[in-house]
């Protein structure tokens, strides 16, 4: 008699499909914080580079804007996409904290989309960084003169923006690591 109202774990001693997979590590709160950081980094990068316009009079007025270089235009576009993506995934992550049933599948989607966005952010950082480096140092082999001695405010803005985008890409790498770790910890031994 006592055995009938005991919980059924003696019969179901082998783990079945989803009933007894290990609960795994739950790092979703950390995930939400990192995604918010990614959003903040993307927003700051875009705003700082867009407001970096500078005009120098040598003697004709010659402006320096981010629009004048296709590399910086790509940088702004890519980081805007990353910012939008981070808003959507922050909301998805918050939703997953409320509905714990979705977590495992959501982890895979996070890893997939985070990897794509990592590619986009890293390439944008590299692109803007490469062109900014040529602007900083110049290149005597191809006769490209440095411009940062003339346009100091513009260069400061671009440099700060690229540094914050680099921070954003590090945050994305951390996001992939914790999603992969959470998924890995859910695999039954």
């Amino acid at each position, binding site marked *: 008699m006592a055995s009938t109202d005991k919980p059924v774990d003696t019969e179901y001693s082998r783990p079945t499909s989803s009933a007894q997979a290990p609960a795994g590590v739950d790092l979703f709160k950390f995930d939400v914080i990192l995604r918010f950081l990614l959003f903040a980094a993307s927003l700051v990068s875009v705003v700082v580079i867009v407001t970096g316009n500078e005009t120098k009079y040598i003697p004709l007025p010659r402006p*320096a804007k981010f629009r004048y270089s296709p590399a910086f235009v790509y940088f702004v576009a890519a980081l805007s996409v990353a910012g939008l993506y981070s808003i959507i995934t922050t909301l998805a992550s918050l939703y997953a904290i409320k509905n714990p049933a979705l977590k495992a599948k959501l982890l895979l989607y996070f890893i997939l989309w985070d990897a794509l966005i990592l590619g986009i952010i*890293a390439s944008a950082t*590299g692109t803007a960084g490469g062109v900014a480096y040529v602007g900083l140092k110049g290149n005597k*082999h191809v006769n490209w*003169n440095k411009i940062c001695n003339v346009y100091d405010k513009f260069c400061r803005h671009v440099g700060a923006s690229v540094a914050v985008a680099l921070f954003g*890409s590090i945050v994305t790498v951390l996001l992939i690591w914790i999603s992969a770790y959470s998924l890995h910890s859910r695999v039954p031994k």
Partner: protein
Amino acid sequence: MEGQRKGSFNVMEGSEANGKRWCGSVVRTCDLVLRLLAFLLTLVAAVVIGADKQTAVVPIKLVESMPPLYVPVAAKWHYLSAFVYFVGANAMACTYATLSLLLSLGKRRKWMETVITVLDTLMVALLFSSNGAAIAVGLLGLQGNSHVHWNKVCNMFGKFCDQVAASLFISLLGSITFLLLLLLPQLFRLKQTT
């Protein structure tokens, strides 16, 4: 009846375990093939741009009355810092692909999978950023930038620019391969959890 139920669970579990084992070996083969492909692509990209050199003769007019001087000008990949970064990143990715290929051929332990996933993400980020930098600087060489008076150079060094473009395309394929390498084991792990 309990024995019957236990037996049916055994059958289900056995076929599930077999299915997962087959799936696991397919994923493992795909992983090894992708690593080999990544190694080859990054190696070819680094070599194609590393062996890139072109000399062009440029007429320089010093004085109006005298005929122009013909000066040979060389274009080498290491004249541009972005290409140096590109070659360095591809060389690192190639080395990593070899090491992880050798590591994966042996017995796969759990800590190895964590380390490989960690390093795979770093390689994806590195490769994509080096591609972006090299493409940006290559585009500057192709089109120039009139606002800062940076003249284009690809009209003089056509062969050099073509080889750089080919190398960039191959490296882009290599970065996509690394991306697939990152995503494939996670897909398999999701199947393992359900």
